[in-house]
């Protein structure tokens, strides 16, 4: 086991998950206090500007999550360890959630400030296409019946989809700027007060913790799904559960949940299934 995998395994074990959960909660409470009570309302936009403290971190998480999908997809194709596939799946799900959230929050902010729910701003358009690409990624994950094939297909989509993002962004930026007027600035003004910046940084930190917590939670669900599948298959194919679990799942599942005992696997029942 190489070292990034060991670190990943340790973070995603049960104690790590619990610590992350509490840390994310504390940081989110801090974000709420900072952004609602301590930071002053914006001079022009009044309280609507406070949406920035959740909108910007959501958009950041979207790009972070899809970068993780990209890296995990390459790692899966290189190592063929299913934990990388589970990481890509978990990160893509959380990423789609926060991409949708970023668009929705931006829309809610845009209505009072820009006077419209939607404008064909390059960043907005790129984010919308990003959302569609990764909805497609999740749809591909539901296609194949074989877990190994699903992992390979998804990894290819995860790699190619991410490569597309900068080209999409470039194309919609030019599309906008070559023929229409100046684009609207996302933050209304070019400078930001120190207290607002502090609130924003706390929010970004809190959302990143939340991302890590949601991903570890989803990873554990993924491991349990794999184990349930193995336990259902075991009596039919006549192999013990451990043999059906992919290369690395068993150690994590044993360390993580401890609930699934190997006594469920009864190779004697095989004959009925065969």
């Amino acid at each position: 086991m190489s070292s990034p995998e060991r670190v990943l395994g340790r973070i995603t074990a049960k104690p790590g998950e619990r610590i992350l959960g509490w840390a994310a909660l504390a940081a989110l409470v801090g974000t709420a206090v900072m952004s609602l009570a301590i930071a002053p309302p914006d001079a022009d936009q009044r309280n609507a500007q406070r949406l920035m403290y959740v909108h910007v971190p959501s958009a950041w998480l979207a790009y972070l999550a899809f970068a993780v999908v990209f890296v995990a997809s390459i790692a899966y194709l290189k190592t063929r360890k299913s934990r990388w596939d589970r990481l890509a799946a978990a990160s893509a799900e959380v990423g789609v959630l926060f991409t949708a959230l970023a668009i929705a929050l931006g829309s809610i902010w845009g209505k009072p400030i820009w006077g419209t729910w939607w404008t064909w701003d390059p960043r907005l358009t790129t984010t919308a296409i990003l959302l569609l690409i990764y909805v497609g990624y999740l749809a591909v994950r539901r296609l194949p019946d074989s877990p190994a094939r699903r992992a390979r297909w998804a990894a290819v989509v995860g790699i190619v989809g991410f490569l597309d993002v900068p080209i999409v962004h470039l194309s919609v930026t030019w599309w906008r700027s070559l023929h229409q007027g100046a684009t609207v600035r996302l933050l209304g003004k070019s400078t930001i007060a120190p207290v607002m910046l502090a609130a924003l940084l706390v929010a970004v930190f809190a959302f990143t913790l939340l991302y890590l917590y949601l991903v570890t939670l989803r990873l554990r669900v993924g491991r349990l799904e794999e184990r349930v599948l193995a336990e259902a298959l075991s009596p039919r194919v006549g192999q013990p559960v451990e043999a059906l679990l992919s290369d690395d799942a068993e150690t994590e599942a044993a360390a993580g949940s401890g609930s699934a005992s190997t006594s469920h696997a009864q190779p004697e029942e095989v004959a009925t299934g065969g």
Partner: protein
Amino acid sequence: MTLLEQTVAMAGKDLRIEVRGRYALAAVLPFAATLLIAFGLSLGPGRTLLQQAAPGLLWLAVLFASVLSFRRAYEHEGEDGALEGLVISPIDKAAVFLGKAAAVVVQLLVLEVIVVLLVSGLFGLSLGAEPVTLVAAFVLGTIGLAAIGSLFGVLSESPRARETVFPLLVLPLSTPVLVSGVKATALAAAGRAGEASSWLGLLVAFDLVFVAAGTLVFGYLLED
């Protein structure tokens, strides 16, 4: 056999199937024509609006027609276990990707000539002004589309993917081709070919990225 010979053999096989089956002529072309008529009807008979929208409608018709062509390129591989034959045959998997892409490029270019003529007739788009830019936009855009289609066409071999997931994947990914193609076509029609060079450059970048990525990762899709 070198990679090039394998690619040519692969493309030749697909083109022979197309010449004998005439699927593009019998199904894809009428589909594209139907789309163009529907666009015309939905935008009304006003000539200025139709002329303005024509480059966009032209590329939308090409995009949707190409989705049909990609699916067709893999449909006949699903019959009689032909895909298994490809998987176990001793050729480079990159040649399968490149050969299928090349065959689709040839088919789409033929289709595009007819669609362009239809659009210039139906919507009054003047296309003679800058032929070089126009041809470059279509050749470059078609290579990019074919790379994406040839890569993910394998997924449409799965019955559940054929109708929904494949277009859901291909259409957002090809947004840069749509945007650049429409812009380059509009500039060529307006006689301002000089401004189209950045869009053609973007198409070149798109082609390079996706042909390279497809060549590298295609083998992983075909492993079983």
